[in-house]
């Protein structure tokens, strides 16, 4: 079995035929066909809501299809639960990490499959050693005995990957595994995926990053609105073609940052330091300007943003908005000074998933919308309607819980929530993480418009094309320090990665 030219002519390893799944009145999947051959890396692409995650859940045994058949090695495959999928050799890395925070990292990896010794007791020593080996293979350093609580999202994702490769998976499903990973970690993951393919496994890779799709995958299947669109060899496709099939229309430009007139400095950060996290970080952002904070995951970018906004304390330095100092460690004062922070992790930090779209959108504006301490329902609705319309949030009704929206629309609600506070400085962490192409360019258009209106925007992003397309200036962080500042015309993939990996840091 050759890895570079997997035999699509031979009998496929896993076949989905006419798989259909509905949730209530919503058809998530309509007669989807998918064939995975052993030795191939197969990309599954589609906008959010195209049905990718539902397909993953079906392969994982978490959902049962309403209609259609699955076969593995020509044998009919029926999955009654996640345990069945696992027994069949299907490993899934979910988009959202699913770890047990109280248990050790090693236990998270081997839950239900811990190595045993006499009397069927768990052999903790062997378990930790095996976990250590998995991490070595992935080239990362994570203490297997530490609790999973407090791991960064990237590290959580790495634990998930270690878990998936720890059992001899014949089919490895990866649902946006790279969203939180830095370039080096992505390369390592791909090396592991390729070695799995070489040994006859099939990899199903879901991602919104096309360079990764074309880097890793042999074939590409496109889904749109729950239906199968096409399956082709990657070499027969271009990015433009894939995007056109995903959205069913041409996307003119992915990153339309318009030039805006630069105004006065709105955000100034001087010598910000937090011991062990970041050191002596100084920069400024002017009105109308988008400044990107680039760097590898773990370089301290989000930590700087959180400190600037006052969520975390800092040991030294100061933060000024429009020339006036903002007290440290107080998000309330930061908001009052005109700052807004759209966090990296929507689910945990940005939204109350059970509350309605309306409530979430006006969450940061409760005080302004109330009289005598009582929230005015009408004012709340009017405000929410204004912003959801402006951001084109697609929701059945304003009263619908945010949890029912797609990732892109959830991100818009977070944005609406903060824009409603009429900020002068907007800090946005990974603005399009896990968002489909169509919504992505909408978010970019919005950011560009906001800058045009005079907002100062500090954007943290791990996607280089986004950084290059959107930013007027790029600040690069490496291991807690600001190592490079690049104006728009000097920034390119090489110069940013060069600085982010710490090479020529003083240049």
């Amino acid at each position, binding site marked *: 079995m050759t890895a570079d030219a997997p035999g699509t002519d031979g009998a496929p390893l896993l076949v989905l035929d006419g798989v259909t799944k509905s949730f209530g009145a919503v058809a998530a999947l309509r007669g989807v066909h998918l064939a995975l051959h052993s030795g191939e890396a197969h990309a599954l692409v589609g906008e959010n809501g195209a049905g990718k995650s539902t397909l993953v859940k079906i392969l994982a045994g978490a959902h049962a299809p309403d209609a259609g058949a699955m076969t593995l090695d020509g044998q009919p495959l029926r999955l009654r639960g996640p*345990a069945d999928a696992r027994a069949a050799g299907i490993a899934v890395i979910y988009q959202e990490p699913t770890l047990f925070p109280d248990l050790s990292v090693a236990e998270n990896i081997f839950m239900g499959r811990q190595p045993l010794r006499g009397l069927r007791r768990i052999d903790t020593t062997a378990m930790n050693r095996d976990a250590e080996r998995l991490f070595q293979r992935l080239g990362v350093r994570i203490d297997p005995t530490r609790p999973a609580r407090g791991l960064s999202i990237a590290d959580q994702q790495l634990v998930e990957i270690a878990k998936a490769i720890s059992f001899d998976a014949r089919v490895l499903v990866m649902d946006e595994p790279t969203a939180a990973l830095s370039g080096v970690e992505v390369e390592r993951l791909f090396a592991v995926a390729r070695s799995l393919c070489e040994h006859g496994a099939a990899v199903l890779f879901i991602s919104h990053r096309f360079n990764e799709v074309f880097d890793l995958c042999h074939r590409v299947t496109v889904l749109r609105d729950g239906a199968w669109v096409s399956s082709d060899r990657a070499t027969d496709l271009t990015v433009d073609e894939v995007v056109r099939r995903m959205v069913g229309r041409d996307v003119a430009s992915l990153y339309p940052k318009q030039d805006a007139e630069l105004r006065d400095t709105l955000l100034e950060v001087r010598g910000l330091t937090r011991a062990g996290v970041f050191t002596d970080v100084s920069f400024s952002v002017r009105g109308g300007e988008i400044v990107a904070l680039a760097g590898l995951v773990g370089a301290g970018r989000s930590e700087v943003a959180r400190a600037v906004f006052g969520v975390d304390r800092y040991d030294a330095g100061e933060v000024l908005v429009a020339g006036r100092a903002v007290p440290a460690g107080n998000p309330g004062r930061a908001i009052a000074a005109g700052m807004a922070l759209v966090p990296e992790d929507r689910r945990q930090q940005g939204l109350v998933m059970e509350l309605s779209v309306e409530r979430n959108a006006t969450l940061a504006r409760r005080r302004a919308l109330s009289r005598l301490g009582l929230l005015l329902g009408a004012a709340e609705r009017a405000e929410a309607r204004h912003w959801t319309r402006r951001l084109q949030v697609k929701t059945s009704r304003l009263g619908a819980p945010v949890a029912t929206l797609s990732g892109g629309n959830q991100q818009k609600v977070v944005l609406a929530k903060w824009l409603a506070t009429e900020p002068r400085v907007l800090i946005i962490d990974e603005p399009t993480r896990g968002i489909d192409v169509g919504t992505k360019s909408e978010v970019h258009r919005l950011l560009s418009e906001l800058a045009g209106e005079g907002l100062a925007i500090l954007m943290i992003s791990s996607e280089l094309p986004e950084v290059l397309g959107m930013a007027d200036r790029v600040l690069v962080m490496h291991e807690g320090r600001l190592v490079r500042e690049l104006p728009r015309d000097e920034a390119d993939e090489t110069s940013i990665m060069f600085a982010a990996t710490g090479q020529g840091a003083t240049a």
Partner: protein
Amino acid sequence: MSLTDAGAPERAAGNAPSDPGRQRRGLTERLLAVRELSLLIALGLLVLVTTVRNDRFLSGQSVKDLLLGCAILVILAVGQTLVIITRNVDLSVGSILGLVAFATGSLFLSAPGTPWPVALVVGVALGALCGAVNGGLIAVARVPALVITLGTLYAFRGIDYYWASGSQINAADMPPSFLRLGNQTVLGVPVLFLVALVVVAVVGFYLRSYRSGRELYAIGSEPAAARLSGIPVGRRVFAVFVASGAFAGLAGVLYAARFGTLDAAAGTGLELQVVAAAVVGGVAIFGGSGSAYGAALGAVLLTTIGSSLAVLRIDPFWQQAVVGALILAAIGLDRVLALRVAARLRGRSAHGA
């Protein structure tokens, strides 16, 4: 980078003593150890202070009374630990204890020749049955255990009252061999306490060393993730309630043996003491962490406070306030430990990883 070393965990190189994993205990385990150590220190201090004020506190009889007094609470707390670890709670244990205690008495009353091991088995089985009712209702109704067991707390007690209909069972109605179980000592240690020790050891060992035991932590730590990893969540939670019921049944039989005189009110209000013991012992009320050893230490500590306050001649009204303060202190300690660990982990990951 070969594939073969990923799937099958090698056991060949085995347990070489030079293995680093063997020498240092994992961070997760160390945290538990610190928590239990702090309980032991608190217990030691309490005994020390009380003994300084009144040296009879450590006399043989007094220690024996103490061990006898905490045995039943320890068993219940260990059963409760199983439940709380899965992010559930069993409020019906006091009622199950009362029902089983009365059933044991009635058994001896109607069949005087029954050997005590039979009564023990019957009692445990009846407790397990009550637990199965809890577990079944939770599985079918998909309602939080708090509500279900609040309901069965009253239901089981109601059955108990209906059955007893005001009557009382006396020690004279029970065989002496059974009553001896409640008071006998082996090398000065009450049998009751030995039974409790066995329960603690077995459950503690199970929770730490067996796959299904670890799965209970996983369920309590993140139920959705537990489902996705193929853990049979429903079955495990059901089993946990059956176990908790069985331990309450065991406690009920021992209660009958110890006190001899039984009416339908036996064990009323005990459930909150049991939950308190578990929480003081470091069992997180939101599931996912804690140990049987900790819960047992919590139960011993609560019992000891009761008797040492009496020895110190402190108004018994204060006892409840002290227990309350202790629960708050325990929660505060958990919080401080969590923050310190978080700070340490942050320092670590700053160096890369």
